[in-house]
Every structure is written in structure tokens, then in C-alpha cells.
């Protein structure tokens, strides 16, 4: 609706540009009515017709729908989970899901508490521990200390846990242990579906870490870096 109001306003502005000279001119009374009427009829009609033919007015409703939908979904899910967990507080999976939702909503305090419960209820589940570690680290702003300890526990339980591998690699990277971070991340890449966004992100991180290794060791072999360059003007 607001789109069509705006379109109307634009058409009015356009008509002002055309009609002002016409109406300012006192000498040309004859013929000025049909010209005015013609413009008043044709310009809006052609604008709307062309826009309906070329444009995508429907996209606004779709966008509004998807936006409302996704916002509604997260909120509703959190509410439902909270209610469910009040009734049944020993559900580790439930706390885990709620904690992840809290992280998505940036409610880090709640996330830490929820995931602490999950980790306590299922201390042998690597993914619960590593997710808990991430929540603590996000809140504290650092992986050092307790989060890293928990990550290592998680890795001992399951050496394939994705979140734990990611965090372990990151921690090593932050401590400038390039080779170690490469070890974790390369392992992680093997587990991830290729072409996924997460995969590409890790791949990028691996490349940077590889560069650091080269830098740290003077000048290593980086033979695969550069395919033959293009020499053409891209006009």
C-alpha cells in the first residue's frame, strides 16, 4: 500500500514539472485543458502499467512475510522451549537447543546458564560441552582458561566434534600456534560439506594460517598460490 502511495507522490511531482509552465502561461488558454487532462490521465496510467509489467511489486509483500515469519519463529520457539523446560527441567537436548537459540538472539547470559545445565545433564556429550564452552567464551570475550579446558574435554570425548575442532583451532590461532590451529581446522574441513558457507569460512582461515606458517618459517613453498594471471582490460 505504502508503495503505491509513494508512486502516486512521484507521479504528482512529475506532473508538477510539466504543468507548472502550462498553467503559468496566461496567453495559451485554448488547448491547455486537453493537454492538462491528457497528461493527468496518461502519465499515471503509463507509469502504473509499465511498472506492473516490468517491476516486482509482489516482492515487498513476500519480503515482509518472510521477515515477520522468521522473527516470529525464533521468538515463538524460545517461548515454547522455556515453557517445556519449566515442566521438564532434566531435558539436556532441550537446554542445548534453548542455549543455541539464546546465542542467536545474543542473550549470552541466558545462553551460558542454559548450556551449563545441558552440560551438567549430559557430561559425556561432546557437542553439549563444546557449545557450553562457546557460550562462556562469547560472554567473556576470550577462549583462554575455562572455555579451552572444556573444549579439550569435549575433544577427548569425541575427536570429531565440529564445534570443538573449530574452537580449538581458533584458540591455537590466537596463541599464534599456527601449525596446531591448522591441524584442528584441516580436520574440521574434512567433516564439513564442501561449498557450504561454514566450509568456505574455515578454508579461508586455513589459508591465512598457512600464510602465517610460511611467514614464521622465513619463506616456505607456496607453489599453488597463483594461477597464470589475466592480462586484459576489463572495460
Amino acid at each position, binding site marked *: 500500500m*505504502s*508503495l503505491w502511495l*509513494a*508512486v502516486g507522490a*512521484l*507521479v504528482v*511531482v*512529475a506532473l*508538477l*514539472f*510539466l504543468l*507548472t*509552465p*502550462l498553467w*503559468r*502561461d496566461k*496567453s*495559451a488558454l485554448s488547448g*491547455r485543458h486537453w493537454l492538462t487532462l491528457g497528461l493527468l490521465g496518461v*502519465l499515471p496510467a*503509463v*507509469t502504473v502499467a*509499465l*511498472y506492473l509489467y*516490468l*517491476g*516486482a*511489486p509482489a*516482492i*515487498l509483500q*513476500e*519480503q515482509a512475510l*518472510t521477515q515477520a515469519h522468521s522473527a516470529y519463529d525464533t521468538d515463538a520457539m524460545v517461548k515454547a522451549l522455556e515453557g517445556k523446560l519449566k515442566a521438564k527441567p532434566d531435558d539436556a537436548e532441550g537446554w542445548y537447543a534453548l542455549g543455541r537459540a539464546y546465542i542467536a538472539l545474543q542473550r549470552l547470559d541466558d545462553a551460558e546458564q542454559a548450556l551449563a545445565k545441558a552440560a551438567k545433564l549430559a557430561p559425556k556429550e561432546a557437542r553439549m560441552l563444546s557449545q557450553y564452552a562457546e557460550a562462556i567464551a562469547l560472554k567473556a570475550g576470550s577462549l583462554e582458561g575455562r572455555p579451552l579446558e572444556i573444549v579439550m574435554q569435549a575433544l577427548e570425548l569425541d575427536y570429531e566434534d565440529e564445534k570443538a575442532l573449530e574452537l580449538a583451532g581458533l584458540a591455537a590461532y590466537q596463541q599464534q600456534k599456527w601449525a596446531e590451529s591448522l591441524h584442528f581446522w584441516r580436520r574440521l574441513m574434512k567433516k564439513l560439506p564442501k561449498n557450504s*558457507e561454514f566450509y568456505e569460512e574455515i578454508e*579461508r582461515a586455513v*589459508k*591465512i594460517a*598457512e*600464510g*602465517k606458517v*610460511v*611467514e614464521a618459517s*622465513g*619463506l*616456505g*613453498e*607456496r*607453489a599453488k*598460490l*597463483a*594461477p597464470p*594471471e*589475466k*592480462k*586484459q*582490460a*576489463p*572495460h
Partner: protein
Amino acid sequence: MIPELGHVALIIALQLALLQGILGLAGASRAKAVWMAMARGAVAGQLLFVVLGFLALIWSFLVNDFSVMNVADHSSRHLPIEYRFTAAWGSHEGSFLLWTTLMGGWTLAVVLFSRSLPADLVARVIGVMGLLSSCFLAFILFTSNPFMRLQPPPANGRDLNPLLQDPGMIFHPPLLYMGYVGFSVAFAFAIAALISGRLDAVWARWVRPWTLVAWSFLTLGVTVGSLWAYYELGWGGWWFWDPAENASLMPWLAGTALLHSLVVTERRGALRVWTVFLSLGAFSLSLLGTFLVRSGVLSSVHSFAQDPLRGLFILIFLAIVIGGSLVLFARRANAVKIAGDLARTTGDFKPTSRETAILAGNVLLLAALATVLLGTLYPLVLDAFDLGKVSVGAPYFNAVFVPMMVPVLLLLGIAPRLRWRESKIGAVLRVVRWHALAALVLAVAVPFAFGEFRWQAALGVGLAAWMILATLGGLIARRREAGFLSLGMIGMGFAHVGLAIGIIGIGLVSAYQSESTVSMRKGDKATLGGYEFVFQGAAEVPGPNYSAMRGTLELGRDGEAIALLLPEKRIYVASRTTLTEAAIRYGFVGDVYVALGEPLPGGAWSLQLYIKPFVSWLWAGALLMVCGGLLAALGARKQTEMKA
């Protein structure tokens, strides 16, 4: 919402442009003042709505609205914000929108600065420009719409072509298009003159400032493009005779010829038909150039046919504009000539006159243009009809274009010395023979001073010395004679001396540039042209949307370190293309240019080292030419105001 409103704004702009065209032309031929006033209103309205459309597109790029297909195809989340801004005209669609926006701006400028002109002439001019704009807007809306949407939108865009992620790209297209579009003013004035049959010295006086400004922009645009190619394409060339470059050279040559013939028409009322022809030609070649570069025919003539609608539209549009204007020219040129002949008092000239010299220069410029046109279009035509692939490159152009330009430059020195109408050639030759002699001596001496005689250097230095001496000598003589120098004369001096300085750069860099490809490990040393290069290794440095290997070289001369050079090789993440970012130490007497090549086994890197003597004179000279053009425009404008 914003992209949709931008779309609507373009639809309204199309209608306003059509009304501007119809009301302007019909109002002028039926002498209806109201219609002409409405056409002027439509000019302002059209500009407003095109600008709104352009702003909507820029906004979509700035906020990463990937539901707009154009944004998804030419930008990404990691693209730095300044390149998100310029990506708005980096695509085919966006560049045409830029063109149309500039066209609207020029049209409004014509309305604002032409209050003293007859109303019907202005109405015809803006009418023609309105029809041109409406063709462009229709082309944008129906075949190259920047506001196509994607639903659902992708999570990230495909990123901008890395070659375009450069400050040079921010300025090159707008400057170039300012020049191209500026020639549409001369075109529209020429059409108006053909329709009305009125073409005289006054007409030329009106057209000249516009053409000078357009020519200055075009010169600057070509210069920035050449500079950009020099530092961005990674091997230090500054002109490749690439079809995309030729596309901008052709309108420049035609525009240069037009500037000079306009002077003759303004001062002497002569060459009127020729001037009209050049006005039509300069803009037609601008159109041809834009479409050559933008339609995709250059990368492959067959890509033209893959989007039949776009290709057909372009062909029909070119046929109407070029063919239509030529038909009009053929039918009406005689009327212009006769009308002018009745009105004029002067106009005939002898073989030994400034008119003849300018005309001869003009003809040579057009002949040179024809060789470029042939070399550019011939391979495309052959390929289009599947008659085989030929590659026409630098050898052809150097062999054909350069000899054609040498007499132009010789004439350039002598023409300002000749008098209008008739000149005693002997007297003039007696004056300039000393300039010629000095130029000859320099042509021989300078190359030997470099230690080795090369014909490119001798030719460049000799021509340039002749041009500078003869131009300055002419200006001094005129100052002595008339007691003052007009802005137009000063502008001419700037432009001609600037061209000469550019030619010195071209001659010396072609003759004496040296290069070497070396493989270097950390600590290795190489020497070239008296410089020492010490390689200090290469390391990875992350960028916003790329990661780069950066080499570090210490540049030294006579054992003293003078600069640190940091050439890079970048890999752009989203498009996975590599790009060489050369390190250049600019200097008055030459540039040192280093490009990082490939990594080699054993930790070594291949590096390209170049010494480019006097290459920056090329761009400095071009800048002087631009200053000259603008000064002359200012002078011409002043004159118009005084006479009006």
C-alpha cells in the same frame, strides 16, 4: 521498497524524456511557446527522476540488498564501502544509468546557460537530447534493467570484478561518459541547425564552449583510463590498442577535429557543412564506442547474439541515430550551405591560409580515425560472419596511425602562425625555419645524450621541440602584435604544449624503457638501469575481501637505499581471481615499476622489473591539454556572453 521506487522513477523519467523530445521539437516547429516551456520543465523533471533512480541503485549497493540482482552480481558483503558505491556503475546496467544521468545533467546545463539563445533553437536542442535520453532509458528499462529482483535473495553477492576495485575505476567511467555525453550537445545543435537551416558563425560560437568542455572531460577520462591500465594491469603498458581503448580514441579524434573546424566556422563562417558533419560524427562515434565496450561484442561477437533483444535494440538505435542524422545531413546540408552563403560576408580562403592548414589537419585526423575504425571493426565483422579470426594489434596501428599523425603535428606548429584567408607563406617559413632547425638539432642530440640513438626518441623529441617552439614563438609574436593574449589563445598554447610534452614521454619511454624478469630469493640482489633491487622476501597480508602475498624490495641507487617497493599478488575470495598490484616509484625522469610474479620452487619468486623513463610526462602532458581545453572553453563562453 527503495529499489522499487527507483524502478518507478526510471519509468517516469522515460516518459518525461519522451515528452521533452516531442514537445521540444513540435513546439519549435509550430512556434508554441507553452510546449517549449513544458519541454524545459521536463528537462528538470527528467534529471530529478533519473538521479532518484541512480540514487536508489547506489543505496541498494550500499546496504547490500542482494534481492536486487544487479547488486548480487556485482558486489558482496566483504566489498569495502567505497567500492560498493562505485560498483553501482561497474555493471552494464549501471553504466548506462550513469550515462543517462550525465545526459540529463548536460541537458539541464544547456537550458540554464542558453537563456540568451532563440527559444526555438534551444527547444530543438533539448528535444533532440530528450529523444536520445528516452532511447537510453527505454534500453535500460526493457533490456538492461538494474532493478531486477531475486526472491529469495542470495546470502552473499558474487563480488565486483577485482580489476574494477581501484580508485582509477571510480573516476574513469564518469569522466569518459561526461565527454561522450557532452558531444551530444554539439550533435543536438547540429540537428537543430539542419532542421531550421540556420547555421552561421553565431551558431558555432554557441556550440564551441560545450564541445570544449566535453573534449576536456573526454581527454581526462582517456588519460585516467590509460594511467589505470598502467598501474593496474601489471605490466606497465599505457596504451594497448585494445578495442576498448580505440572505442574512446575515435570520438576523441573526431572531437579534436570538431574543435578546430568550429574555430574556422566561428571566425570565418567557413567549413560549415564540414563542422556539422563532425558534430554528428563525434557523437555517433561516442555511441558506437559505448556500445562496443558495453554490449559484450568485444569479448565475443557471439555474446552479442546471445541476448538478441539487447543486440537488436543497440543495432536499431545506432542505425536510427547515425543513419537518421546522415540522411538528414544529406537532405539538408545544402540548405544550410545556401542559407549561410546568403548571410555571410566572408568565408572563402586561399590555399596558404590558416583555414587550409586546419582543414588539412582535420582531414588527416579523420584519416587516422578511419584507420583506427577499420582496425577495430574489421576483426569483429569477420568474426561475426564466421569468416575467420584475425587479430589486429599494435603493429598495424603503429605502422598506420603514427605516420598519419606526424604531419598533423607538423601542421600544428605552423597553423597558428598563418593568417586567416591568405598568408604569405614565404614570410611564415622564414620565421619558423629557426624553430625547425632547433628541433632537428634536439632530435639528434637528445637520443645521443641517452647514450644510444633510437628513432622513436628522435621522432618524439624532434616533433615535440618543433611543436613547443613554434607554439610559444607564435604566442609571443601575437602578444607583441595585439598587446594581449585571449584565453582561447592561452588555452591553445596549453593544449599544444601539453600534447608535445606527452609526445616526449611516448618517444622516450618507447625508446629507452628496460625490463628484466628475475627469480629472487630472500636477500638476493638485482640491478637494472642503474638501480639496485634487494628482495627482502614475501609474506601474506590479509585484505578486506582478498588475501595478498606482498613482496618487499629495497630500491637503491649508488649504494644508497631510496625507497621500499611493495608489489602484491592478490587473490580475491569471492571471485577467486588473482590480480597483480604493481609497486611503482613515480619520478620526474622516469618510473621504477615492479610486479610480483609467480612463486618458484625453493622459496624464490619471479619478479618483473621495469625502468620507464619519462613515462609520467605522458599524463602530465594530457593534464595540460585538459587545462587548455577548459581555459579555451572559459574564453569562448566569455565571448558568447559579450556578444549576446
